[in-house]
């Protein structure tokens, strides 16, 4: 693909397009080693079944049921819950720190 000359209207799109393969390479190359690190075959001693018999209905029971029913969904649930919890706690605690009256603006990068 030939890069358009600067100041042409397509330049903005060119910028977007050239980021796509870079981002895809990043995601795919991030996937391989981490999948490797997680191990190949499951250990034979471990059985992926959560004991829900003594659990009262609630969040724990819901998680355990998802775990028992569909591990792919469970993997997605883990990422979604962690990201959402991190985001919510991050925003709330950030507001809390502002209430303490601290100056939380940009920092000079002195050494």
């Amino acid at each position, binding site marked *: 693909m030939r890069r358009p000359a600067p100041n042409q209207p397509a330049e903005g799109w060119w910028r977007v397009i050239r980021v796509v393969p870079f981002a895809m390479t990043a995601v795919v190359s991030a996937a391989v080693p981490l999948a490797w690190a997680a191990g190949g075959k499951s250990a034979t001693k*471990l059985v992926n079944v959560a004991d829900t018999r003594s659990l009262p209905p609630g969040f724990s029971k819901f998680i355990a049921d998802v775990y028992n029913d569909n591990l792919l969904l469970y993997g997605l649930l883990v990422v979604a819950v962690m*990201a959402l919890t991190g985001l919510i706690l991050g925003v709330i605690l950030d507001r809390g720190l502002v209430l303490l009256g601290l100056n939380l603006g940009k920092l000079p990068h002195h050494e």
Partner: protein
Amino acid sequence: MDALTIFLPIAGIQFSILILLLIGFTVGVCGGFFGIGGAWIVTPALNSFGFPMSYAIGSDLAHMGGKSIVSTIRHGKFGNVDLKLGGSMIVGTTVGIEVGARLVMYLERIGLAEDYIRKVYVVFLGALGSYVLYDYVSHVRASRQAASEGAAVPAPSKLARRLQRVHLPPMIRFSTSGVTCSLWLPVAVGLVTGVVAGVLGVGGGFIRMPALIYLVGCPTLVAVGTDLFEVMITGAYGAFTYGVKGRVDLIAAIWMLAGAAVGAQLGTVAVKYVRGYSIRLLFAVTIFIACASVLMKQLHFQRASSVLILSAGIAVSGVILGLLVAGIQRERRERANLARTNQGDWS
């Protein structure tokens, strides 16, 4: 005490909420301050309290992703996250981890992996800690000499400046870091740190942070923030892949994240009150402790090694919190003095 013990249905064990909160808080403070994930504290700590190892690794990765979001938000507001640099490094890092993992497989095939890797780990940690400490001492000496002569303090990291001068297109300006260099420099640094992380079987945060300082030439605070950005991405994917394999106890991860979020926020704000070189000094001490812990494991003192790493983590986070409290008090005093001076000017 029983009220604070919960049943973790996925790991299949009873576990204390307090321990989860404590481990999370400790690693949150250290992670926010140093820009690391802290798997080398969490995994042995959980395991020594009875958590099965594979669940300890998976649950640690899950909470690490959430915790790094908390720290990255705050570091981002401080202007410490170089997204362009982090994005450039991630490809090299992940390819490097893959190469490192394959190297480990090869060492396993020839029967050298277990013993060899741990020895390399000890030597590597010792060398890294010694270099960071040497750099700190050199900087302090140079600063004192410069102060006595009335000269400017010499710019640090000659190696980084030399590497930045390598003109290999495309040259990129990383404005947050204040660095202009070839795109291949962060990619190569990511690759090298990735290989080391892959061989040693760790996330790599504690290797990337000094690499960003000494090889790319980032200011310490930007190295910390940018490293956390990478930890956030790798932690999220690690959580997914371990989750799909059923090795994440989500309830345990949520409790740890609750402690870690508070710790991460405090650890991150603490960098505001500490100079970059002080972060490096404390980092060197932490690296030496990790080195001692691995050495003890090599000598088959498994339990003692876990106790050492957890108690050291608590001690280091205590020091960081002490620095934070002292910094806040200093800031308040200065503000009060300023207000008094202004009042005096008006009256």
